[in-house]
């Protein structure tokens, strides 16, 4: 009986084949042999479920749905362009009733025609409590949606709301799919979307999502025939595979992206955004609630250093939630200066006396609080560590705590959190109202991330409501400037930075990309590929 020695000989052969096989075939490039009208992108996040009622494409970024209006490009606050609407919505002069004429001859991907009923069904489903839609709060101002006729829709608002057109970016789903009321997350649309958008979802498996061009899209068939989005969660892996030429583009943390700036065949692109990071300061806590601590922290933090060292220059300091891109609504004077000595002086004056370990104490209370952050996001971890280091310099101890998302919610009123903001940045109202209005401090109103600092300033409330109701741009801008001055006087949070979203693009035979102001959302649905429908093939 021969012991499996002859077998081991065979195994040696297979192992050798494996290694030689690999040595000679260098990693294939993304487009070898595949149809060149094809783009392969790598995304850090899995695509969210495709039901608009669940919030998919709320800011008009969906590939498979169209909103009534859509964003125009450009660097400043983007203008709105008609999409499924034939022209921009007109109000009745009091900004309470908005009528929208609809485009004719548009068909859904399942062949059904697009008409007013679909618009009514979509917005009604968002407002319907049975849908338990997470974005219902953003459309609370809508009282009723009516179909005036087949081709016109009227929105009746509960109160005048000047920036209402920004609410019409939401993708429209077919009424047939929304007939049966039920939770948005259980709708079939989540995995099998039916939309009028420029692309169709052709495959959704494991780590990859494939879209194909919609031949009879009302705006003409996009020249990009196929878009493959691969889900690669780990930043390092994504960067290595991008460097190895596997993708046509991806989104990367700024510092890693910069290492590829000089690689041939790759370009690093930065898009401005109203996406900001801040540290919430719960009012209930004796330390974070104290105005002196809040102001001291705001002057102790070195925002410029964070932008240059952590973001590699891809971003701007943030003093209030209002980015400069909002033009007149932005008050340049509402800002803080990095001045640790002033911070120490203010703390001393307020009675916070440094203890023997350098940490300040007042009435037996140590100037110490916990700052939570999501451990898997390196950017938030670095910002938290820099914040803690700056705070320590002025005698305030910040204990960092890595808290996974499920445990984050109950601790928001108790502990500070490294939060993100700017989900819908196309009007100061959506950027500020839920974040600063005192009505959002009451339980049951909005979610835990709304007004985490529990700001209850009547002047702020009044200014926000006035701005929301007024239709005169000048009055609105003035009101928002007042909000910023009140914010700087008693900051409920320490705003840190506005991020510039960074993408790496492989040089290819495409033209047509242009910058756009991006929301807090992340991933390749934005970036240079936000207007993929307009790309032209130059190969």
């Amino acid at each position, binding site marked *: 009986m021969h012991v499996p020695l002859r077998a081991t000989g065979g195994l040696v052969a297979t192992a050798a084949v494996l290694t030689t096989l690999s040595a000679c075939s260098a990693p294939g490039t993304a487009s070898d042999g595949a149809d060149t009208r094809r783009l392969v992108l790598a995304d850090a996040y899995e695509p969210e479920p495709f039901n608009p009622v669940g919030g998919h494409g709320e800011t008009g970024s969906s590939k498979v749905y169209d909103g009534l209006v859509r964003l125009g490009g450009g660097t400043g606050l983007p203008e709105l362009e008609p999409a499924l609407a034939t022209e921009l919505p007109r109000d009745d002069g009091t900004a309470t009733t908005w009528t929208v004429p609809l485009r004719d001859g548009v068909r859904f991907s399942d062949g059904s025609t697009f008409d007013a009923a679909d618009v009514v069904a979509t917005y009604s489903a968002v407002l319907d409590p049975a849908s338990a839609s997470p974005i219902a709060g953003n459309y609370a101002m809508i009282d009723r949606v009516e179909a005036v006729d087949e081709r016109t829709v009227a929105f009746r608002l509960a109160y005048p709301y000047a920036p209402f057109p920004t609410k019409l970016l939401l993708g429209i789903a077919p009424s047939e799919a929304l007939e049966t009321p039920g939770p948005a997350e259980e709708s079939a649309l989540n995995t099998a979307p039916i939309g009028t958008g420029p692309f169709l979802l052709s495959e959704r498996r494991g780590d990859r999502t494939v879209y194909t061009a919609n031949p009879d899209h009302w705006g003409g068939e996009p020249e990009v025939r196929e878009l493959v989005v691969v889900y690669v969660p780990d930043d390092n892996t994504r960067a290595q595979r991008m460097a190895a030429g596997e993708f046509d583009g991806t989104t990367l943390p700024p510092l890693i992206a910069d*290492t590829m700036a000089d690689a041939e065949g790759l370009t690093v692109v930065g898009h401005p955004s109203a996406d900001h990071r801040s540290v919430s300061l719960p009012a209930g806590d004796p330390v974070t609630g104290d105005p002196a601590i809040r102001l001291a922290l705001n002057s102790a933090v070195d925002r410029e250093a964070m932008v240059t060292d952590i973001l590699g220059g891809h971003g701007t300091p943030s003093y209030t939630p209002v980015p400069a891109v909002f033009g007149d609504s932005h008050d340049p004077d509402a800002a803080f200066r990095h001045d640790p000595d002033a911070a120490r002086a203010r703390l001393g004056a307020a009675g916070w006396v440094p203890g023997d370990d350098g940490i300040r104490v007042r009435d037996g209370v140590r100037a110490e609080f916990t700052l939570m952050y999501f451990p898997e996001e390196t950017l938030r*971890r*670095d910002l938290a560590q820099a914040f803690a280091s700056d705070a*320590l310099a002025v005698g305030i101890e910040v204990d960092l*705590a*890595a808290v996974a998302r499920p445990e984050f919610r109950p601790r928001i009123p108790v502990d500070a959190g490294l939060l993100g903001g700017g989900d819908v940045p196309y009007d100061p109202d959506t950027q500020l109202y839920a974040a600063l209005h005192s009505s959002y401090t009451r339980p049951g109103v909005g979610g835990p991330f709304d007004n985490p600092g529990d700001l209850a300033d009547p002047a702020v409330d009044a200014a926000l409501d006035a701005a929301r109701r007024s239709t005169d741009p000048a009055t609105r801008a003035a009101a928002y400037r007042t909000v910023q001055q009140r914010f700087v006087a008693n900051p409920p949070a320490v705003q840190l930075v506005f991020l510039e979203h960074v993408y790496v693009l492989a040089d290819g035979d495409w033209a047509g990309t242009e910058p756009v102001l991006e929301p807090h959302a992340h991933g390749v649905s934005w970036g240079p590929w936000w207007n993929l429908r307009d790309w032209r093939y130059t190969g």
Partner: protein
Amino acid sequence: MADRDLRLPLGVGVLVLLVAYATLVPWVAGVDDRVTDFSAARLAPSPGHPFGTDSAGRDLFVRTAAGLRVSLLIAVVCAALSTVLGAVVGAVSAAAGGWVDRLVMRLVDGINAVPHLLLGIVLVALFRGSLVAIVASIALTHWTQVARIVRAEVLSLRDRPHVDAAVLGGASRWRVVHRHLLPAALPQALVAAVLLLPHAVWHESTLSFLGLGLPPHRPSLGTLLEEARSSLLLGGWWTLLFPALSLVLTTLAVAAVGSGVRQRISAPRRGATLR
């Protein structure tokens, strides 16, 4: 191959060096590792920073020492817990014998059937973020080896003359276990504890590397190596080299000491029991 008895002095020497490095450097440097300077992030090794700096600009020479100290501390605590737990269970099951012994042994086989790290991951995932969970996840999965060794030792000692004498002298079974059997089994248990250290260091650093152990901002060999993963891409090879080196050296030194001690302990014993 190095002569066998060379391993013990070599192991002890390296271990003393590492422990000194881990305890003295952070204390002497007095640097508070909460202070970050992102402008000095990822500097290559230089006279100022012999090990270079990490992604938050902290000096890696000090940070690796702090990380090693945390990892060693956790390892020692876990090894001690495992040994105590293992010794008690081993002694009890050997002394009690009968169905208790069989039950315990089945439990031991059961625990050994599941890879230790997996049990650790489940435990830490459920009790997210608590240091106690990390220590428990290591201690609760490594006591089985100690239990087996102590049980064998106690069983072999149980029918020795001086034990019978004690029982005849009216000592209760548990006092016999407590005063005679356990102390006799101590050296073997100690050796098992020392040999557990490398496993404990690995276990902690693996959990932290997977993001399930210590939080990323806390220094430990695992978190430093996890951070190295991203710095590696930005050319920061030193962020991987030095923590990895200290982890490997620690493991090898402790293993050498463990096997050296075991060899010393078992050698005279074998001579003594020339049955």
